[in-house]
C-alpha cells in the first residue's frame, strides 16, 4: 500500500465523490450516464496515457490540443474523400505521430526544452489549421462515418475494450518491459541512464511520437461520434490532460508516477463537471472547483510523500 500512497489520495477523493453522488444525485450511476461519461473522457484518457510517459521522462507536451484538432480535420477529409474508416484511423495516427515526431526530434536531438518546442508547435499548428480551414467545418461525411458504420452500442463497447486494452498494455509495459523501466530510469536521472547504456534520446523521441499517434487515435475515435467535424476542437485539451496526469500523482519532474494514478486522475477531473450539474451547483464555479481540486491533490500528494523526499525515487516504482 505504501508504494501506492500517491494514488491513494486520489482514490479516496473519488470514493468520497461517489458516495456524495450516490446519495444526492439520482441516476448518476445509471448505465447510460456512465457510458456517456466514458465517451466524453475517452480522448483525455487515451492522450493522458502518452502524456504520462512524457512526464515520466521529465518532459511535457502542451501541443496535444492542436494536434488533436489537426487529426480530427484530417480524419474528416479522408472520410469525405471516400477512404474507408480503418484507413482513416491509420492516417489520423500517422498524422499525429508525425506532429509528435517533430516535437520529439527537437526535444531529443536538439535538446530544446520541451515546453518551448511544444509551445511553438501548439501556436503554429493551431494557426495553420485556422488559416487553411478559415474555421469552416468538415461536413457532408458519408453515412457510414458515424460510429464507423456500426451501431452506437457496438462502437461504445468496442472503444471501451480498446481503451481498457491500451491501459493494460501501458501498465504491463511500464512494469515488465525493458523499455518501460528505461522510462523511469531516464526520468529519474538522464545522465545516469545514459551511462547505464540507455539510449535516452531515442526513448524521448519515441515517447513523443507515441503520444502524437495516441492523440491521432483519440481524435479519430472522437470524430466518429458525430457526423461533422469542427475545425476548432481540442482547445484547452492540453491543460485537461496534464492536470489529470498531475492529479494522478505523476511527478512533473519525472521519474515517479503510475498509469493507475493517471486513470484515477482522468476519472476524478472528468466526472467533476457532470457531477456539479447533477448536484445543481452553478456552472459559474466549475473552473474554480477544478482548480481547487488540482491544488488539493498535489498538496495531499506532497504531504503524503514528504517523509521520503530524499529517498531514491526508484523505490517508488511499482514492483
Amino acid at each position, binding site marked *: 500500500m505504501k508504494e501506492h500512497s500517491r494514488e491513494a489520495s486520489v482514490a479516496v477523493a473519488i470514493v468520497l465523490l461517489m458516495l456524495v453522488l450516490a446519495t444526492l444525485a439520482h441516476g448518476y450511476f445509471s448505465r447510460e450516464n456512465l457510458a456517456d461519461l466514458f465517451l*466524453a473522457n475517452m480522448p483525455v484518457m487515451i492522450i493522458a496515457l502518452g502524456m504520462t510517459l512524457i512526464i515520466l521522462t521529465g518532459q511535457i507536451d502542451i501541443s496535444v490540443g492542436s494536434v488533436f484538432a489537426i487529426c480530427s480535420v484530417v480524419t474528416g477529409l479522408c472520410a469525405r474523400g471516400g477512404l474507408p474508416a480503418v484507413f482513416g484511423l491509420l492516417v489520423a495516427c500517422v498524422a499525429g505521430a508525425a506532429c509528435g515526431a517533430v516535437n520529439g526530434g527537437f526535444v531529443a536531438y536538439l535538446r530544446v*526544452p520541451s515546453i*518551448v518546442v511544444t509551445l511553438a508547435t501548439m501556436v503554429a499548428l493551431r494557426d495553420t489549421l*485556422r488559416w487553411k480551414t478559415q474555421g469552416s467545418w468538415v461536413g457532408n461525411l458519408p453515412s457510414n462515418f458515424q460510429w464507423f458504420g456500426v451501431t452506437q452500442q457496438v462502437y461504445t463497447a468496442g472503444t471501451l475494450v480498446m481503451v481498457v486494452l491500451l491501459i493494460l498494455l501501458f501498465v504491463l509495459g511500464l512494469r515488465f518491459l525493458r523499455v518501460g523501466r528505461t522510462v523511469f530510469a531516464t526520468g529519474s536521472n538522464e545522465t545516469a541512464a545514459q551511462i547505464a547504456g540507455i539510449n535516452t534520446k531515442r526513448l524521448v523521441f519515441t515517447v513523443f511520437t507515441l503520444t502524437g499517434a495516441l492523440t491521432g487515435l483519440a481524435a479519430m475515435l472522437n470524430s466518429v461520434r458525430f457526423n461533422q467535424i*469542427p475545425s476548432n476542437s481540442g482547445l484547452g485539451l492540453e491543460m485537461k490532460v496534464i*492536470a489529470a496526469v498531475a492529479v494522478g500523482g505523476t511527478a512533473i519532474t519525472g521519474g515517479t508516477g503510475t498509469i493507475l494514478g493517471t486513470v484515477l486522475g482522468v476519472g476524478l477531473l472528468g466526472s467533476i463537471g457532470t457531477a456539479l450539474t447533477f448536484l445543481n451547483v452553478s456552472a459559474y464555479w466549475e473552473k*474554480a472547483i477544478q482548480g481547487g481540486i488540482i491544488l488539493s491533490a498535489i498538496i495531499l500528494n506532497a504531504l503524503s510523500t514528504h517523509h521520503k523526499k530524499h529517498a531514491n525515487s526508484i523505490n517508488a516504482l511499482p514492483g
Partner: protein
Amino acid sequence: MPSQVKPARRIRFSNGEWMLLFALMTEIVLFCAAAPGFFAWTNMFEVLRFSVELGLLSVALTPILITGGIDLSVGSAVGVSAVIFGMAWRDGHMPIPLAVVVALLVGCGCGALNALLIAGLRLPPLIVTLGTYSLYRGIAEGITHGAVSYTGYPKSFLVLGQGYLWRTVPVQLPIFLLVVAAYVLLLHRSVIGRALYAIGFNSEGAGYAGIPVRKRLALIYLLSGVVASLAAIIYVAHLGLAKSDLGRGYELEAITAVVLGGTSVFGGRGTLFGTLLGLFFLSVLQNGMHLLALPSELTGVLIGLLLLGIVSYDRLRAMRINAKPRIYPLSGARATRSKQVVTVLGVLLLTAFAILLPRFLRTAKTSATKSDVRVATGHRPVIAVMPKAKGDPYFISARAGAEEAARELGVDLIWDGPTSLDASQQNELVETWITRGVDAIVVAVENKGSISTVLRKARQHGIAVLTWDADAEPDARDFFLNQATPEGIANALTDEAARLLPSDGQFAIITGPLSAENQNEWIAYVRKRLAAKYPDLTLTTVQPSDDDRDKAFSQTQTILKVYPQVKLIMAISAPAVPGAAEAVQQSGRKGVDVIGLSLPAICKPYVHSGVVQTIFLWNTRNLGYLTVYAGWLYEQKRIPPGATSINAGRLGTLQMRGTEVILGTPLLINKANIDSLDF
C-alpha cells in the same frame, strides 16, 4: 584573463541578444519598406501602448524563468484582479485609488498563494500554477457569473490607459518603464538578482552557498502577482471595462516573449533586455502584419517557427561550444560565432522574404493599378471589415457576402479580426487601420464600452465608421447595420419555445462562453419576456458550451438526465445547436426539441431529421454584403443626412431608422426553407 579582453559586444549583450536585436531591426526595415504607415512616431507609440500589459507580465516572468520556474497563472491573476477592482469601485462604492489598492492586494494574494505552495511546500511551479491558473480564472467567473462587466469609469481614471502625455507618449508607458527599471535593479544590480541566477543554475548548490532559496523564490512569485494586478488596472483603463475573461491566454504569450528573448526555461540564463527585445519583436510583427492586411493566423505560424528556430539555434551553438575543450582562444570562438550568426540571420531573412515578397509584389502591383484607377475614376476605396472572431462559422458565411460586394463595387476589402473573442485585439486592429489609412471601417463590436473610444478617433481621422452585428455607442459610429435587435432575437426565440412547449413547460439554455456579451444580453431578454408573457414557462438551467460543439453535446446529455422534465433546449451559439441536437438524437428521447441561433449549413442534417425544429438567423451572407456596400455608399457620400432608405445593390431598398440601417426581420429557418439557403 578572458574577462580582460571581453569584446564590447559580450559586455553589453551578455546573452547573445544582439542576434534578436538584429532580427528586430531587419523586421522593422522590412515593414518600413512594405507596410503603409508603419514608419511613423505615432505608430511606434501605438505599438508600445498595446504591449504594456503583456510587457508587464513578461518582465515579471523573466526572473521566474531564470530561477527555472514558471508561472502560468499570471493571465488568470489579471482576470481576477480586474473584476475585483471593478467590483470594489462600482458595487463597493470605493474611490478609484482605494479600488486600485484593493486590486493590488488581490494580486498580492494571488502571488502569495503561488509563493506559499512553490517556495513553502516546495511543489513544482508548473503544476501549482496550472492549478491556480484554473482557480483564479474560476473565481473571477464565479463572482461575476461570467456575465457582469464593470464599465463607466471616470475620465480621470481612463487616462491611465488611453491618455497621452504631451499628446504623443501614452500615459502607461512611464509606468511600464518604472517597473522595468525596478526589475532591472532587482535582477541585474542587486545581490538578490545574483541569487536568482544561482538558484536557476543549481538551486541545491545555491542553498549550500548560503542563499535563502525559499525566501528569494517567494519574493519573485509574490511580485509576479502584484505586477499582474498592476497590468490588470492598466488593462481596465485601456479598455474601459473589467470582465472575467481579461488576460486570457496572456500567460503563454508572455512566456513566448521571455523565451524568445533568450531566457532559458532550464534556468540560470536570461536578461530583461532580451525579454524586452522579444516583446517588441512580437508586437512589431503583429502590428506590421495587420498593416499589411495579412491574415492574423499567419502571425501565429511565424511566431511558432521563429521560436523554434531561435531556440534550436541557441542549443546548437551551446552544444558545439560544449563539445570543444573548455578553454579556447576567445578570438577563435568569436570567429565561429559570427559565422554561425550570419548563417542564422541569412535563413531568417530568407524566410521573411519568402513570406513577404509575394505579398509585397502584389501590393506593388495593386498600388500600380490603384494609381491607374485613380487616373481613370479617382480613388479605389479600401474598406476594412472586422468580424467578432474569424473562425466562427457565422462570420465566415458573412465574409462570402462581403467579398461578393467588394468584387461588384471594385473596392479593396480587408477582412480581419481576432481569432477568438477578444475586445482588446479589436481595438488594436482599428488602431492599425487608422494608421494604414483605410477609407471605411465596419466593425462587429465585441464590447461597446471598450471600442467606442478608438472608433471616435477613427471618425476624427475622417474615416467612415460603421458597426454591424452589434453596435457601439451611437456617437462613436456613423451608421449601425442592424440585422436584428437583441430584444427581437430573444423574443422570437422565447415565442417559438412557448409555441413548442406546453404552457407550464420547462426548457434549458446552452450558451457560448459564460462571459459572452451578446449571449448574456439575449438571456436577459429571454427572462424578461418569460416574466412578461409566459409566467408559467420555466427556464430550468443555463449551461456554457464555450463555443465548443463537443462540450455542448455533453452538457445537453447531462441536462437531459438531470432534468427529465426539460422538453426543449435553446442553444444560442452557432456550434452549440448541432452539439445539442446530436445529444438529443443519441439519447433517443422523443419529444425534446432543439431551437436556437445557428447556421443552416451545420444544422441541416438535424433539421431534416426533425430534432431541430427551428433556427433563427438573418441572412448572414446578405449581412456581409451589406457591410461592404453600406461602407462604400457612405464613404462615397451617397447617404445624405436624414435619409430614410438606402439602395444596397442586390438587396434592393433598405429602410433606415435614424442612423440604423435595417436588414430585415430575422429568418425563421425550418424544414421547409433550409435547402434553399446556401450559408
